[in-house]
């Protein structure tokens, strides 16, 4: 168990490509830190540098107080769970889990005790004699976990360990891994592209894009106060609606936003909470609002008329507990920079918005409806820098 510190870690390839650029992170003892980002953002490279599977081009890596930049993987006292499990197929589950102990010269009876303890934590006692080929995906996943936890390393490294499991199993393993990590208290560095895993498992979440760290924060804070447009769009599902709008001063203490051709009132408290916002009066900004802050206006009759959008429903997805409604609004869309994001619905002139309505909504595709926007929950970003205001 130890702390870990990345100081301006960078990975530059021979062709000049920078996979990771100036990444600085500090993991507290026992912390579960999730590094999340879209595919190809350098997050796995960062993990592999910590493991010692890739050379570190620049920066310094510490586990505890030791600088381990040039240490061989076997000497780093880290354990890793691979995306593909990477179990040794010629060995039984018992031998797989016990392998790190065997290599480190533990005696057979001691080894067996440790293996049994790990196996009982992971509910693998029945499978100890089997080879990986006979196991299901979830069991293989747990064997890979067992091989990591059996030797009590300073640091756990997990490279998208759940991405090969089916959806149901993933939800269960998500909770299991978080629980095991909590029980063992081992500092954990977890890489995923799935923001739901990041939000549900991490004590803190680090969002990375093109090898550059965007924001590190506890999940709630990341969700409530994203530092920039990318984080705002990446965290949350369905993601935040983002489009260009204009902030208008309608009088002393009275503000409006112009979204396309529609003018909406903004509570003074929103402006008061963001002192920087006054400087953007009558200028274009990026305005963000989450789907859950939109509601079918017919379900909230007392919602002020000046905070309603009039839209035409394009797509309706009934999910049971809620209904997702997609509609275009006539405002210029904003590219968040997430390569995995969906293409915009309406090209340059209109933005695709998603709303999360209560299940009681009666809207149908093609309906012209009023949408109540909770303008107290708006996010504002600079149009050029994409930074939060």
């Amino acid at each position, binding site marked *: 168990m130890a702390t870990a510190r990345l100081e301006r870690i960078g990975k530059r390839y021979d062709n000049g490509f920078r996979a990771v650029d100036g990444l600085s992170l500090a993991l507290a003892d026992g912390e579960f830190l999730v590094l999340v980002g879209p595919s190809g953002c350098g997050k796995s490279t960062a993990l592999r540098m910590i493991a*010692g*599977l890739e050379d570190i081009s620049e920066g310094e890596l510490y586990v505890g107080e030791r600088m381990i930049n040039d240490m061989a993987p076997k000497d780093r006292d880290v354990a890793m769970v691979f995306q593909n499990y990477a179990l040794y*197929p010629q060995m039984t589950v018992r031998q797989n889990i016990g392998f790190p102990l065997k290599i480190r010269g533990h005696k057979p009876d001691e080894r067996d005790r440790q293996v049994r303890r790990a196996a009982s934590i992971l509910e693998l006692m029945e499978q100890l004699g089997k080879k990986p080929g*006979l196991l299901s995906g979830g069991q293989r996943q747990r064997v890979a976990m067992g091989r990591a936890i059996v030797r009590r390393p300073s640091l756990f490294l997990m490279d998208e360990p759940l991405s090969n499991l089916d959806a149901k199993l993933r939800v269960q393993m998500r909770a299991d891994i978080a629980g095991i990590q909590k029980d063992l208290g081992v500092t954990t560095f977890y890489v995923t592209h799935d923001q739901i895993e990041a939000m549900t498992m991490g004590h803190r979440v680090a969002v990375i894009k093109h090898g550059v760290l965007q924001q590190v924060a506890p999940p709630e804070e990341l969700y409530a106060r994203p530092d920039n447009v990318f984080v705002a769009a990446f965290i949350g599902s369905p993601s935040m609606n983002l489009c260009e709008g204009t902030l208008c001063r309608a009088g002393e203490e009275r503000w409006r936003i112009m979204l396309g051709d529609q003018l909406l009132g903004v509570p003074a408290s929103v402006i008061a909470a963001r002192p920087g916002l006054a400087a953007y009066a009558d200028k274009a900004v990026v305005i963000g609002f989450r789907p859950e802050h939109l509601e079918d206006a017919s379900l909230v009759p007392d919602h002020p008329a000046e905070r309603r959008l009039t839209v035409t429903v394009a797509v309706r997805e009934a999910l049971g507990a809620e209904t997702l409604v997609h509609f275009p609004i006539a405002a210029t869309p904003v590219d968040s920079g997430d390569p995995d994001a969906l293409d915009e619905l309406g090209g340059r002139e209109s933005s695709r918005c998603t709303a999360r309505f209560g299940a009681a909504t009666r809207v149908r595709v093609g309906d012209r409806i009023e949408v109540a926007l909770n303008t107290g929950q708006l996010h504002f970003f600079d149009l050029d820098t994409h930074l939060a205001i």
Partner: protein
Amino acid sequence: MSKPSSAIGGAHPLFYPLLLVACAIVMVPVLWMLSTSLKNETELFRDPLLLWPEKPTLAAFRSVFQDYPFGAYIRNSLVVVICATAISLAFSTLAGYGLSRFRFGGRGAFLAFLLLSQMFPSVMLIIPYFKILKSAGLLDSRLGLIVTYVSFTIPFCTWMMYGYFRSIPTELDEAAAIDGCGAVRTFFTVILPLALPGMVATSVYAFITGWNEYLFALILTNSEEQKTLPVGIGQLIGQYRIEWNELMAASIYSTIPLMIFFLFLQRYLISSLTAGAVKN
């Protein structure tokens, strides 16, 4: 991973009939060899030809040992081929692993060079080989033949092993490194056991290549004590007459070690050894 078993389970109606025809085509020459070896000299040239001898005799099987030094031929062949196979396997396994796992300058060119070396017809090489072995004092020796065979088989065996190692996920090397293995230990404890089917296939190739080799053995040896089995069998074809029954008996002898070799190794010739290592 393909599913050979289920393909047979739901067999096409023509599957077994076609298999029988294929078996017959393969078996006819072998059975003819057996039948000829059991004939005596008068039955050999009976008109019409006998499919099966009326009085089968093992005389030919005895005479090849009595009239010619077939024991020495067989021993020479075994020594040369087993040594050549073992050496080829050791080198090609190490080379194949290195080529599949490490990136270094000239790697692609080296692989291409290995293939290029296979493109020369052996008649073109035989005089250079003769001169090299002569200057090294290795003419007419088993060691000379071993060196020669190894030089043929290593390049192709290296390609075979390179291909096989590439099918073993590199995550296993990485997992082993993190679990505490150095490079050598990773190779011997984790990767090599998985490469067994590839090593078997490679050794089968090297063994057969050496066992059947005739031309170089003919040119590079000349004393009876150093000749190999194919050369010995070839000598049964005389200038004026061919001892067909002895020729066929000797041929049967020469197939026996191959059959034993195959029976012993065929259980390793399975491709599913890495099943369960990684999720495909």
